[in-house]
């Protein structure tokens, strides 16, 4: 649910990075944090385990500039990908405006991708959202690894809605900002249509 503060002329939207464990959700946020000027972003919060696995969520506030005098802010969240953190994952989706599904391109993670997409559908529905209509972008991460599945095959299995999709190597930043721009655009278009 976008939050619009008319006196302060600000709009804030919430984007959630979703996907199976170790697919690169946190890496996306870390790269955005590292490459964004300090004036355009706030502090990044990572609620992680001692082994740096996301425990509750990562959070990165980002200012994208102004649209017609309105400061446009995005709050980026990533969920914990591990299956047993489902209760936390569900909570993070509250009030979401757009979702980035980060898929792991490795062939042996295909089942985890499919399971996570289905889990996203179920958890969105609990908040009254529909995976078939919510602003959604899919990123195929880890394209640099030798046993990565072809993008076409991943797309056929995961992107039945034909939403914008991007190959990525998040650790090197490839595809990270393309993904962010695409979801931000979809969210703002949805805000415009009311």
């Amino acid at each position, binding site marked *: *649910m976008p*939050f619009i503060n008319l006196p302060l002329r600000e709009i*804030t939207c919430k984007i959630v990075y979703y996907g199976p464990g170790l697919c690169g959700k946190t890496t996306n946020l870390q790269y955005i944090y590292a490459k964004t000027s300090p004036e355009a972003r706030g502090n990044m919060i990572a609620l992680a385990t001692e082994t740096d696995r996301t425990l509750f969520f990562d959070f990165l506030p980002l200012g994208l500039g102004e649209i*017609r005098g309105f400061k446009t802010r995005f709050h980026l969240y990533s969920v914990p990908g591990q299956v047993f953190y489902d209760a936390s994952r569900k*909570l993070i989706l509250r*009030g979401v405006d757009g979702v980035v599904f980060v898929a792991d391109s490795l062939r042996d993670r295909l089942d985890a991708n499919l399971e996570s997409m289905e889990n996203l559908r179920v958890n969105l529905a609990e908040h009254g959202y529909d995976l078939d209509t919510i602003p959604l972008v899919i990123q195929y991460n880890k394209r640099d690894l030798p046993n990565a599945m072809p993008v076409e095959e991943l797309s056929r299995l995961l992107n039945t809605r034909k939403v914008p999709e991007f190959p990525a190597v998040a650790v090197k930043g490839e595809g990270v900002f393309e993904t962010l721009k695409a979801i931000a655009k979809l969210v703002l278009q*949805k805000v415009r249509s009311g």
Partner: protein
Amino acid sequence: MIQQFVIHEEEYRRITAVCDRLTRDANAKSVFLVDKNGQLIASSGATDHIDTTSLASLTAGNIAATGGLARLLGEKEFSILFHEGERDNLHISIVAQKVILVVIFDSRSSLGLVRLRVKKASEELAQVFDEVQRRGDAMGLPSPFAEITDEDIDNLFN
């Protein structure tokens, strides 16, 4: 149509006035009002040294997690949280099941006083947010962004 949470000038003024009064009456260091999705609505008092965006996000996460625990135990919600520190204490409460009121206070105040003042402020805030809700329902919330173009959006990324 997507739901939007729009705060207008008059409501913002009333909300800020309630927060300012609560800060004074409770002898608090600062007061924050946060929506349940983690966005800061208003703040009052000594906020300069605090990362208010992070505070809002973590508070909402805290309330969400506590709400999850409440449901596990068959409770509707735990409406008040209290965290006691060596210097500062945090009193967190849910107002009108919609927004979160955060009060930071130290030894110059007390939990009893904060709870008393929060109760009064919550009633006033609940009234404001009821009106926000009713206005939204009645007007169907026309988006202030209805006029923006694809070009405006593209320009954000240039």
